[in-house]
């Protein structure tokens, strides 16, 4: 389960921010995960619950924003429906994934005494 390595990277990154802001605790962690990222939000939650003990995230709320995959034509920007062949039916150009592959730490809310 690679979600554990993703969560470890998340905790390290958050810990560095908490340290830089002299925070006593992390209250909210907001991440965005695309449905085409290869990362499963439910597994991220389980891994987060396991790995956060003893860190400043011990009581933090993890908010995961799921980002739908959007394929669009490179040439004419026409969006393609899910499951379609990834060529623009109008101009024949190969499509590009416009969003949905992100694994992003968006923002934090820190408690600073």
């Amino acid at each position, binding site marked *: 389960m*690679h979600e554990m*390595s993703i969560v470890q*990277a998340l905790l390290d990154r958050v810990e560095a921010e908490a340290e830089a802001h002299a925070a*006593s605790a992390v209250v909210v962690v907001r991440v965005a995960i695309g449905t085409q990222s290869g990362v499963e939000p439910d597994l991220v939650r389980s891994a987060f619950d396991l790995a956060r003990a003893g860190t400043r995230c011990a009581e933090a709320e993890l908010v995961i924003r799921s980002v739908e995959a959007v394929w669009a034509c490179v040439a004419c920007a026409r969006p393609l429906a899910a499951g379609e*062949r*990834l060529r623009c039916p109008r101009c024949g150009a*190969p499509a590009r994934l416009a969003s949905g592959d992100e694994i*992003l730490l*968006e*923002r934090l809310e820190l408690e600073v005494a």
Partner: protein
Amino acid sequence: MCEDCGCGDPALVPVEVQESLLAGNDRVARHNREHFLEHGVLALNLMGSPGSGKTALLEATARAHTGLRIAAVSGDLATDRDARRLEAAGIPARSITTGSACHLDAEMVHHALHHQALAGLDVFVVENVGNLVCPAVYDLGQNANVVVLSVTEGEDKPLKYPVMFRKADLVVLTKIDLLPHLDVSRAAIEDALARTMPEPAVIALSAKTGEGVERWVAWLAARHAGLAAGTAAAGS
């Protein structure tokens, strides 16, 4: 302290980050990529299911006497069997034993490079852990992702594992000598690929009979030559 009313409660400070959780891996991957390019080495991330024929493909490549100098690292949860098979076929290889890790990351490959001189090589293959899920997430610094898909896996694997196939620069369809014995159509596999890869590139072959291996070897040679041309163009 809360600055609004001085009540003594701790203040909540919002911090905007907007950074990929793979940023650390991607930094090491960039370093690996520079290292490969500096030596004119074509680096491949060879992925696919367990048993899809990744090692057999490399063995067939060695038998084809390509003239390309190839070395490899093989990632497996346990044993160094793949690396030993490659060594026996004439491809210098080491293994990365991952324990319970389901994929290789850029740091593991970086570490492996400390034991593998790139000077004098043309192609360096990272044979990833057999898995259609986790390896797709991690950039290793490769020049191309090659996904090995055997016809025995059925027609719908690309639709079930779209992330892996979306990131493939080439799909090598293996074990085609078995097609007469299976209810599997190549057209259906290629249709599934067209729904996961914007520009599907497929080479069908049998490592056992050698059918189609020459097209894979030609692809390798062309990618390697393209690398040198790209470096020359960038330097001019």
